[in-house]
């Protein structure tokens, strides 16, 4: 769109994936209504999951997955050195995601349990931002494609993007959803950054906090509420540690 006399640039976008389920990459191939427009607005130069083509330089690197092996650290450093903008895509990249759950286990025991004597290399999980400087984090498990589209537009225009400051509860109420606590369930909605349209509570599941903390999470009050509603410390912390972006009870 040549609006305000500004010709939009078509940034060269590369996708890379590390430890994770590749579900966030997949979202980029979703949202069919605007897929063609999305692909026309950018130039995809690397997208291993759906394309064999690999062309030279890129301006934006969308990095999915957590970092759990030395070869991944090296690949990531090389990407950082090449790209102008490095975006952590999805909760694994932003917080380590569910992969972080293994950090509390004994690596040797864990390895023996799964691989027997032929143990596999695996480092404690780190987020992308714990290894290299990240320019922008797009949380979500998986990320929301409409949100990714908005963010890509902002990158094209070169203007700052801001995530909602409010927690999940606002959109939950605004979707006429019954509060999960009223149904006797635990929900991290009050702590978690909104913008997902409270899709989990609407689907009958409490929020698990995949989008990380809202602008001003009130942890002490949340812990007090959860305990008072009869949830055990174990339950509360199992939930809070799930995606790695939130604090746990003291």
């Amino acid at each position, binding site marked *: 769109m040549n609006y305000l006399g500004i010709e939009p640039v078509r940034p060269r976008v590369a996708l890379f994936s590390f430890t994770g389920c590749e579900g966030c990459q997949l979202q980029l191939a979703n949202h069919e209504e605007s897929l063609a427009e999305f692909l026309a607005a950018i130039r995809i130069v690397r997208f291993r999951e759906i394309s064999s083509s690999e062309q030279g330089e890129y301006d934006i690197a969308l990095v999915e997955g957590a970092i759990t092996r030395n070869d991944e650290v090296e690949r990531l450093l090389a990407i950082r050195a090449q790209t102008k903008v490095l975006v952590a895509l999805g909760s694994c990249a932003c917080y380590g995601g569910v992969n972080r759950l293994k950090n509390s286990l004994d690596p040797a025991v864990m390895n023996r349990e799964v691989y027997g004597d032929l143990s596999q290399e695996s480092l404690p999980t780190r987020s992308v931002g714990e290894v290299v400087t990240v320019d922008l984090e797009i949380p979500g498990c998986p990320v929301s494609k409409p949100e990714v589209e908005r963010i890509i537009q902002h990158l094209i225009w070169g203007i700052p993007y801001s995530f909602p400051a409010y927690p999940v509860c*606002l959109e939950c109420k605004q979707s006429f959803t019954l509060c999960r606590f009223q149904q006797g369930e635990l929900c991290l909605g009050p702590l978690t950054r909104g913008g997902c349209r409270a899709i989990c509570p609407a689907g009958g599941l409490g929020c698990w906090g995949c989008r990380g903390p*809202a602008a001003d999470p009130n942890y002490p009050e949340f812990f007090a509420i959860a305990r008072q509603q009869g949830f055990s410390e174990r339950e509360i912390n199992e939930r809070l540690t799930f995606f790695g972006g939130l604090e746990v009870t003291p």
Partner: protein
Amino acid sequence: MLFRIVEKMAFRSLIQLLLETTQVIGPRKIAVTREGKPVHQYLPLSGFEELELGYDTTDIPAKSYFLPYEENLSTWSFIGNDWTQEITYRLQPRVLVGLHACDINALLKLDKVMTREFFPSPYYISRRKNSFIIGIDHEPCQGGFCHWLGTDSVNRGFDLFLTDLGDRYFVAIDSERGFTLLQQVAVRLVTENDTADYLTVRRRIASGFAPPLDVRQLPRLLDMEFDSEIWRRWGAKCLSCGSCAAVCPTCYCYGVSENVSMDFTRGAKVKQLYSCTLKDFAEVAGGHNFRSARETRLKYRYYHQHRGFVEQYDEPKCVGCGRCGRSCLAGINPQEIIGDLLATEVPS
């Protein structure tokens, strides 16, 4: 005002008749809580059976049919360096049935903000005038305190208002279209008997309320107690989640954001109802936040309800429906806060 009597069966036919051509919205049971309490919401009905007029209260007010949580203020089409703006307003009539006095009083308050003096809102007015409102009298709901604020009854703002007299409704008619519509079914004039029954019901309803607190001092107290520890105490609990304003029938503040389609040919200006308790409510470019503390934001919600609005319109904005308190996970509720400000125990 005119009054008539409608048999319940006739009322049923009236709703069914309306359903054939018009969207009808009324209280429907959507779930039960873990304590086994039914939860009702004002939702479009597909048949009369879904309508539960005996409901206690709804978790979400009827507000969203007048001020939707999200609405397109305008859409843009971009053509080269130029653009056009398109704005549409509601044109379809609809019926809202089963509103309690507090919800209708809430609309009357919104009317003051949205339809008078400064920049009347065509978005609101088009919805308001396209809404046919049938209110209903009811026993005091759990956790409401409308009688503190004088909003437990209502004399305007509706088309029809029902009082349940057992086998029939006593109907107050406040609009020409209400009167005309009622002609669709069998109605009769009010007899002395009906009036006596009506008064009995009203007395029974009135006697169901606990003694009210006297809130007339609140505007001044809110100024005096501006730096009170009351706000620190309650503020520490607030999750800044905005649920209270979302479920408040009179909270109308909002945010606007604009977006552009992925092919950069269209755009929209979208309004989303917001809440003064949310962190970035008063944040400006550059990061300065005029209300960065939770307690300040919570305080301002009460300040607007019980002082600001009074100064502007000589009445509080709150109608005492109790929804904000019920929806607040942290247990922050207006009765106790008002009690604290008045340094009085809240009668239960």
